[in-house]
């Protein structure tokens, strides 16, 4: 590294007594995987790439949407519609060409997690869902690698270091993931951009300390942040040794057989006849941001998807449930949830949503 431009680039962090040339070289030799290139991932990457990590893997299966831009500060308006991993790589390459960036344009699952994570020393978990957080934790336990799991919602956020040395795992904080459909998410409950920014920065700092071998990390302590009060609180996490005994990966993403989905799906042209002839139906309209869904003379008040179990439980047993949404995505997820998790066989979902009815001129 002597006399190279790297010395100048990293000079101000290298002159820190707790860093120095040797620790900078540890950064250069390290390989870090960032799972999720959303708001947390953007903050992590914006600080780890300039710091001179040798290899950074960026894993994400989404394309950038306009609604991401207020918090996913790595991206620009012109990136909308582009896979996040590609937009991230383009921006980060310019920030620091010394760093080797690898992109994984996929969703982590039980079949690929071990092979991907095996290539890295450390995982920074920045996804927006519990199934992925548990998958990363379990794979890291099996491969004996530390992971830093962060989360943010509304004005709140939290992070900790898991499976580091003799420390606890994510399952010591939460033994099993909560049901995905019943949870508020950033998409339906909102999030203030600065909060994942703060949590992501702290994740990057913990990563730097683990790589350079600084002794005091967040292992064994969950750091919880309340943004409205600007308050940090620590929650102790104790190791349950049973949580280190993981010998296989578990998928928590619920899947539903195609034949069953097909049986409970209503083609757009059959929507009104089905409502008229095969009822009585209670129509459940799903949306995170529209108060009502309307078509013809019908007007339905909407609910967010996570309220589905409680709303459906209140519908009298003799009624069937017709799930609708604007484009057919949310009601399909809700249908899968009701069929697989609640064994609710009286539920039907409108294929492709109300937009399909409009395309067919049925409005």
């Amino acid at each position, binding site marked *: 590294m002597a006399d190279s431009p790297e010395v100048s680039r990293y000079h101000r962090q290298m002159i820190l007594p707790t860093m120095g040339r040797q620790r900078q070289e540890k950064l250069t030799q390290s390989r870090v995987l960032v799972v*999720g290139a*959303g*708001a*947390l*991932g953007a903050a992590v990457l914006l600080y780890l790439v300039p710091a001179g990590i040798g290899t950074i893997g960026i894993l994400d299966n989404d394309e950038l949407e306009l609604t991401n831009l207020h918090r996913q500060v790595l991206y620009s308006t012109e990136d909308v519609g582009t896979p996040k991993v590609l937009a991230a790589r383009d921006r980060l390459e310019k920030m620091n060409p010394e760093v080797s960036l690898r992109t994984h344009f996929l969703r982590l699952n039980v079949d690929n997690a071990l092979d991907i994570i095996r290539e890295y020393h450390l995982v920074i978990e*920045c*996804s*927006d*869902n*519990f199934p992925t*957080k548990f998958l990363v934790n379990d794979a890291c336990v099996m491969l004996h690698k530390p992971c830093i799991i*962060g*989360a*943010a*919602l*509304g004005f*709140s*956020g*939290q992070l900790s270091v898991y499976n580091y040395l003799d420390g606890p795992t994510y399952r010591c*904080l*939460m033994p099993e993931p*909560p*049901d995905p459909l*019943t*949870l*508020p*998410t*950033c998409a339906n*409950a909102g*999030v203030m951009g600065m909060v*994942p920014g703060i949590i992501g920065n702290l994740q990057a700092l913990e990563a730097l300390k683990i790589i350079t071998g600084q002794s005091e990390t967040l292992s064994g302590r*969950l750091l*919880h942040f*309340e943004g409205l*009060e600007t308050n940090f*609180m620590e*929650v*102790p996490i*104790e190791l349950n040794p049973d949580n280190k005994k993981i010998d296989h990966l578990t998928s928590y993403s619920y899947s539903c057989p195609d034949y069953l989905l097909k049986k409970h799906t209503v083609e757009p042209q059959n929507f009104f006849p089905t409502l008229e002839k095969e009822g009585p139906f209670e129509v459940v309209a799903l949306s995170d941001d529209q108060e009502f869904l309307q078509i013809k003379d019908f007007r339905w008040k909407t609910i967010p998807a996570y309220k589905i179990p409680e709303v459906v439980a209140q519908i009298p047993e003799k009624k069937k449930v017709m799930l609708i949404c604007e484009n057919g995505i949310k009601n399909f997820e809700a249908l899968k949830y009701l069929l697989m998790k609640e064994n609710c066989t009286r539920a039907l979902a409108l294929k492709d949503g109300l937009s399909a009815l409009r395309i067919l001129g049925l409005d």
Partner: protein
Amino acid sequence: MKIKVRLFATLREGRGKEQMMEFTDTATPQAIFDRLDIPSADVAILLINGFDGKFDQPLKDGDTVSIFPPVGGG
């Protein structure tokens, strides 16, 4: 007995962040969830005086109970 109840993240919506609550001497954290209409599935972390607590653990006068929901966004 009097219990100090502290709520975090989305559990604060419509419930506030901290309150003193009066219970009979046999109360457990479940009684707090019931009174505040917090479904068990919404409780990811339960602390009694800063340490991991159980839903059916008997509470004592002056205890502080902290309740966190699952936070999974990113």
